[in-house]
Each structure stands twice: as structure tokens, then as C-alpha cells.
């Protein structure tokens, strides 16, 4: 019986039979359907996925005409910081524009949280102004809401991660509500200044990393910004496939935020005024690539079908079926991209 070269969610290679591959695809889509209470993929979609997963080519691509645009998070952290290339941020952006041919790029500071940026806002706006003179592609400015940074010892508010294990639930909830007010102010302030300095868009990245209060603060910030600047473009990128209920009783537009999956998250983001939604589906390191891919595509398809705004699926390490490895294998990355666009109907990555 022939076997296909594939991987696990942590990137480690393995070989599986056609039957095993088909079974994993089916179990993966059913897991997403069960958790998200959304339709599983059809047999023809599973066949398409099987074809993508089993092609002998090392890399695959979307069919001509199906190409989509890409946006970034932590844009200028990648070459100068993570790759250790000694270049400044504007060189990194021009490298993306003129050598990598990226469709967009993001200016970002190494201290990637809105709270930290207010202290250096003048340097950041100056950097955006300089970058805008030399670049052609749209440039976002991005950072994380990072609600946890407002708690002790980093901020003035009681730490709910310490209050919750002590069963001080009402105190923990109150602390989160208080932190939200600070975070909204910082996000609106920094985003306003960067937009006025010429940013083509603002990226709220890794929304929800501190739970549902982190999401609510970001939604409210988007709402304020959109009222202030009707033309502002805002990308609303999530941190996980469901909103973690650190508070549990926070609502936006009448919807409880905790526990929302991507097809529900996109609707609240849309309502707040987001322009692009960044869907995130977590990769399970222990499961196969096929399992992760079918599961991810199922969530993404439900999300793009529900969305009225473009959906850019996060395909970074450990999300969007991309293996949880520092150097994700191109066979897996290109297959995930193709499947997310052709079956998930993603508007961008």
C-alpha cells in the first residue's frame, strides 16, 4: 500500500496510508464542526483536501487567478529582530516591498503593546512619516492590546491572574473592567496618532491574548476610532480560535464574548467597525497535518461565509494548520495556504 509523506502539528515528519489520511481529515473536520457548531466539510471538499495533502510536489500553489493578498503582524520585528539582520525598520519595510514583493507591510516597535507606545509616540510617528515617503505598498502600524500589562507589577491594577486562584472572582472581574478603560484610552491614542502620521491601516494584533476583556477593550477602541476617522482601515487579528473567558460576563452588541468561535468573532468585529478580520485557528502539535488542516479549513469556511468584511487567516507558526515549529516546512505551509484560499475562501493571509 502506498504511503504519503506528511507531518505532525509540531512539524515532525511521518508517513501515513491513504486510509489514515482520509480518516484524519474526517475526524479533523468533525472536531471543528462539533466545537464550533458549524457544518463539517462536504465529501468533495474532503477529496480536494486529500488531493492537496497527497500531491507529490514539495510545494503546491493556488490555481492561477486564485491569488490573495497578504498582511503581516509584527512586521518589522521579523528581519531586524528575529532574524538578527542588522538593518533599521525602514530598510526592512523596503526589503519587503522591493525584494519580497509583499502586498502590504507593518511598522512595529519591539515593545509590541499599545500601552508601552504612548511614551515613545513621537519617535513612532516620525518613523511612520519617513517610511511613508519612501514606500509604495500600504503600511500598517500594529501592536497588541495586551491587557495583562495594566496589572501589578507592570501596571496599577490588581492582578486577576492572582485573584482568580484565590477565588476572588468579583474582584478579578472588577480589575479586568478597570484595565479595559486604560487600554481603550491607550489604543485610541496611539492609533489616532499613527493614523494621522500617515499609517494606511492600524493592526490590532493578538486580540484576546488576555481573555474576553482584552477583546471587549479592542472592540470599543475600534468603535471610537471608526467614529473619529470613518476612513481608517483597521485589521482585527485574534489570538486564539475561541475567546478565553477570563471574565465570562462581558458582552458586545448583546453577545457574550467568552467562547465565541471565528464565525461569531467576525460578526462582533464587523459591528465594531473593523475593516479586515484576522482569523486564528490553533494548531494541535500532537495531531497530524491533515487533521489540523481539515479542522482549520472548516472553521475558516464558516467564518468567511458569515463575514461581510475580508478575512485574512493567520498562517504563522502554530496557527492556521501551520506546524508549531520555528522553521515550518514549506510543504505544509504551501498546502495550508492553498486549502485555506481554495476551500476556506480566505480573502487574504
Amino acid at each position, binding site marked *: 500500500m502506498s504511503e504519503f509523506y506528511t507531518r505532525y502539528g509540531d512539524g515532525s515528519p511521518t508517513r501515513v496510508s491513504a486510509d489514515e489520511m482520509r480518516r484524519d481529515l474526517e475526524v479533523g473536520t468533525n472536531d471543528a464542526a462539533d*466545537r464550533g457548531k458549524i457544518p463539517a466539510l462536504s465529501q468533495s471538499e474532503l477529496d480536494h483536501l486529500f488531493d492537496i495533502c497527497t500531491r507529490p510536489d514539495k510545494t503546491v500553489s493556488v490555481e492561477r487567478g486564485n491569488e490573495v493578498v497578504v498582511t503581516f503582524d509584527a512586521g518589522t520585528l521579523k528581519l531586524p529582530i528575529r532574524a538578527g539582520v542588522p538593518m533599521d525598520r525602514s530598510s526592512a519595510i523596503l526589503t519587503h516591498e522591493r525584494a519580497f514583493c509583499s502586498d502590504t507591510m507593518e511598522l512595529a516597535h519591539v515593545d509590541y503593546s499599545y500601552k508601552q507606545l504612548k511614551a515613545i509616540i513621537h519617535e513612532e510617528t516620525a518613523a511612520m512619516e519617513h517610511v511613508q515617503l519612501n514606500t509604495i505598498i500600504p503600511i500598517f502600524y500594529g501592536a497588541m492590546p495586551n491587557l495583562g500589562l495594566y496589572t501589578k507589577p507592570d501596571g496599577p491594577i490588581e492582578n486577576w491572574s492572582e485573584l482568580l*486562584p484565590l477565588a476572588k472572582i468579583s474582584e478579578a472581574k472588577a480589575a479586568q473592567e478597570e484595565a479595559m478603560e486604560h487600554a481603550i484610552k491607550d489604543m485610541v491614542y496611539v492609533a489616532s496618532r499613527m493614523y494621522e502620521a500617515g499609517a494606511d491601516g492600524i493592526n490590532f494584533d493578538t486580540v484576546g491574548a488576555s481573555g474576553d476583556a482584552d477583546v471587549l477593550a479592542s472592540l470599543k477602541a475600534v468603535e471610537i476610532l471608526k467614529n473619529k476617522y470613518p476612513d481608517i482601515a483597521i485589521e482585527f487579528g485574534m489570538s486564539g480560535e475561541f475567546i478565553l473567558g477570563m471574565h465570562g460576563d462581558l458582552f458586545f452588541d448583546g453577545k457574550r464574548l467568552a467562547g465565541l468561535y471565528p464565525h461569531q468573532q467576525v460578526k462582533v468585529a464587523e459591528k465594531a467597525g473593523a475593516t479586515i478580520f484576522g482569523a486564528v485557528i490553533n494548531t494541535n502539535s500532537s495531531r497530524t497535518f491533515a487533521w489540523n488542516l481539515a479542522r482549520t479549513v472548516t472553521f475558516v469556511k464558516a467564518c468567511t461565509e458569515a463575514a461581510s468584511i475580508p478575512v485574512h487567516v493567520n498562517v504563522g507558526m502554530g496557527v492556521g494548520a501551520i506546524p508549531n515549529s*520555528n522553521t515550518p516546512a514549506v510543504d505544509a505551509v504551501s498546502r495550508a495556504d492553498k486549502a485555506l484560499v481554495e476551500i476556506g475562501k480566505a480573502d487574504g493571509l
Partner: protein
Amino acid sequence: MSIEDIFLEARETILQCDQERAVRLAERALAEGYDPVEVISSGFSYGIRQMGELFGRGEVFLPQLIMSSEVMKAAVQILDAAIIQGETTQYKGTIVIATVEGDVHDIGKGIVVSLLKTQGIQVYDMGRDVSTVKIIEKALEVKADIIGTSALLTTTLMSQKKLEDELRKNGLRDQFKTMVGGAPATQRWADRIGADAYAEDAAEAVTKALLLLNRT
């Protein structure tokens, strides 16, 4: 009330975070002569593990998870009093747990800690960004049975291997059982570095810890 009904209702009180009912049920179970150990393990503990699983699906939230732990504590307090002294069914072992050096992610670990505490395991939570040396020192100091480490980043995952290496190098490996967790960790990783167990989520962490302590 049959023992099966007691188990079912105990699980329900946990899932519904109903402390008053849980306490009443614990008292009734004792009055009817049921084994308190069995009521804890197949009733309340089982409920807590179910809560952990629901939390992992986004169907219950952290405050509920914490509240259910409190319900569990109240019920166990009643049942514990009836357990014959010396059987120490409540105390099952000691674990030292930490997020490894260079890694500040600890939401998942916090949930593991909360659930472990409900199972009669003494937990020493060292927090986040903790060096291998400090973890080993603490484990020696408190005579831990298990050392548990969490890593969310692929770059910090190597610290779990470093812990295994350091334990072996210092002739301490046989003194402790080790458990690993975190998004990039897998059973394959645990096997490769020689850890005793891997857990995918908080509910599994409890099951695996109890297995390592031979207390299932």
C-alpha cells in the same frame, strides 16, 4: 439514594457550581454510609475533570472553573473528616510546577494548578520564566514527587530537555517524575527527551499526574 445517583449528583453540583447542594450531598453520602473516597474520586473529582474539558472547548469560563474548584473544596472538607486517619486519601503527592526560563505564558499552567489542587495534590507553583536550577532546587527542598514544566514557545521548549539533562547529570533523575506541557510539546517530544508524561490540557494533566502518583 444509590451510589450511582450520588456520583451523578456530585458531578452536577460541580458543573453547576452549586456549593450548598454539594455540601448537603456530601453529608447525605456519609449518612447513608457510602465510602467518602469513592464519592470524591468518582463523583466530585470526575466533575472537576469534566469542567476542565468544557473549559478547553470554550464552553465554560475561568470564573466558573474557579468557582467549581471552591465547591469541590467545600464538599471534600466534609468527606475528608470522615476518612480514617492515616489513610491520607486526600493527600496524594507533591508537584513543583513552573513555566520555563524565557517564557512568560502562564494562563494554561494556572488552570492546571487550579485543577491539581482539587485532586489532593500539593502544588508548588513557581510562576513563569523560572530557571532550571531554581526548579530543581525547589523540588529538592519540598521533596516533590513530580516536576511539571510548561513552555508555550518553540524557542523555550528546549528548557524541558535541559531539565531532564540536568537531573540526569546530577544523579537526580530517579528522585522525580517529570511532566511536560504547552502548545509545542507533544508525547513524541516527551519520549524524545525522556520525560515521564505529557499532557495536552489541564484535564489530562490531572489524569497523568494521578497516574504518575499511582493514585487513580
